[in-house]
Structure formats: structure tokens, C-alpha cells
């Protein structure tokens, strides 16, 4: 009995020492790696963007069936999407020589995790002639956001 207890105590001491040694050997990495994933069903708030582009983005996410829930209250959201957009109308030269009246569109969006304040997604789009203007650029953003969510990265 005494022998068994003694053996157990020795084992415990050895385990404790080994754990301590391992902890000291393992380099201190500081804070854990940030979580850059956007889970399916996450709640996303789209902050107001000049020209009502936030509404185009909401429509695009609805059309592309992006698997998130868009909310209108930032306090209820897990993520926030913000962005900028710019449209350039076709000039006379483009209209006459190219027969093209489509606008040039640029847009840039970023998605931030509101809990960790980490930027989890960013995307730029730039097209010389978009057939449907803001609708096209917002759908490009929505499509890539959907890919990001579905990949689970």
C-alpha cells in the first residue's frame, strides 16, 4: 500500500515537472491568432455609404443568396461592412467612338469583426464598362463575400 502511494506520488511529481518544462520550452506567442472567418448566419450591419450604395449591397447579397443576416442595428451585429464607391459616366468620346454609354465603376468594401475589431474581408472592384452600374459592382462584392463565407477561411 505504502509502496503504491509512493509510486503514485513520484508519477505525479514527474508529470508536473514535465508539464512545467514543456511550458518553458514552448515559445510565448502572445495573443492567439485572430479568427478571420465569417460564419454562416452571421449578423452583418452595412454602414451607410455615399449614394445609397449600402442599399445596392443589401440587394446584391439578397440576389446572390449570401448566407448571412443583414441587420439595421449595429448593436445587434457581429460584423460591420463599410465601403466607398465611385461612378464615372461615359464621356462624349466613349459614346461616339465606342458606342458605349455604360458607366465605369469602382468600389471597395471591408468587413470588420465587431468583437475583435479585426478586418476579416476586403475586396476591390474596378470595371471600365459595367452594364448595370452600381448593381454590377455590388453583386461582384457580394459574390466574393459569399465565396469567403462558404470556404470557411
Amino acid at each position, binding site marked *: 500500500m505504502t509502496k503504491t502511494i509512493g509510486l503514485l506520488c513520484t508519477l505525479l511529481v514527474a508529470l508536473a515537472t514535465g508539464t512545467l518544462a514543456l511550458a518553458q520550452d514552448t515559445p510565448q506567442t502572445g495573443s492567439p491568432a485572430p479568427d478571420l472567418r465569417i460564419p454562416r448566419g452571421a449578423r452583418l450591419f452595412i454602414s451607410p455609404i455615399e449614394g445609397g450604395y449600402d*442599399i*445596392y449591397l443589401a440587394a446584391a447579397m439578397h440576389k446572390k443568396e449570401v448566407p448571412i443576416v*443583414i441587420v439595421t442595428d449595429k448593436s445587434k451585429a457581429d460584423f460591420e461592412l463599410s465601403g466607398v464607391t465611385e461612378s464615372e459616366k461615359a464621356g462624349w468620346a466613349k459614346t461616339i467612338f465606342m458606342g458605349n454609354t455604360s458607366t465605369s465603376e469602382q468600389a471597395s468594401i471591408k468587413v470588420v469583426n465587431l468583437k475583435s475589431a479585426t478586418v476579416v474581408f476586403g475586396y476591390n472592384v474596378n470595371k471600365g464598362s459595367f452594364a*448595370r*452600374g452600381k*448593381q454590377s459592382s455590388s453583386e461582384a462584392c457580394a459574390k466574393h463575400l459569399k465565396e469567403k463565407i462558404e470556404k470557411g477561411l
Partner: protein
Amino acid sequence: MRMVGIVAAIAVAWMFAGTMASAQVASPEGGLRPGARVFLAEMPDGFQGYLKAAFARKKVPVVLVDSRDDAEFEIKGSSESQKASTAKKLFMGSWHSDEQASISVANLRSGEIVFAYSANKKNSAHGKQTTAEACAKHFKEAIEKKK
């Protein structure tokens, strides 16, 4: 005998929970349904006026209210018109404007956006009326699908 009783009780509880869960799943998404009370927010260029007219013309089955406090849903929107340039009029023979518009419908209780739609019409014969009616038509389809 006691075991049979316990198993029966668990089975009944399981069935009850399943019924409750399916009842929650079966309810319309976001509450969008015919007769819902909808408020049209102020929009640039008075687009909400075009939407009101479009809703009436397309017979969208919602009740438009004047006060946000009385509404279950709020529609926000954005609209942009691009008039035909001189070059377009001369060389393409078209004087019609290009129109873009977008609407989103939010459930005021849950704060979730339950429907959103963008319309883009080149050489629109009727300007904002065309995009407003496109939005109204698709909103009506969304409501009727969720009946």
C-alpha cells in the same frame, strides 16, 4: 411497467418539442405577408413618391402607412437618373435617361432586412416610374412566394 411509462413520457416530450420547432420553421421568413404595414422612408429625388404610385399600380398587397411607429416594415431606397447626353442624342438617336434604383425592406421589430432589390434600366422610356415599378413587381412576387 415503470420503464414503459418513462419511455412513453420521453417520446411525448420529444414529439412536442419537434412540433414546436417545426412551427417556428414554418412561419413566414421575416414576417413578410400580404396585408403587412409598410412605411416608405424619405428617399433622394422623392423616389418614395414613385414607389407609392408603383405599389398601387402593381397592386402590391401591403398597407402603406404614414407613420414609422405604425409600421411593421420600413422600405429604404436610393435612385439615380442619368439624362441622355448630347452625344447620345445625336449619335445613338436616344434621348431616354438611364435609371438605377435600389430598395431594402427591413423588419422593424427584428431589425433584419427581409428583402432587397436593385433595378437598372438603360434608355428608360418612363424614367423613375420604370425602376419604381420594377421594384414593386419584385416585392410583390417576394410577398406572394412567402404566403
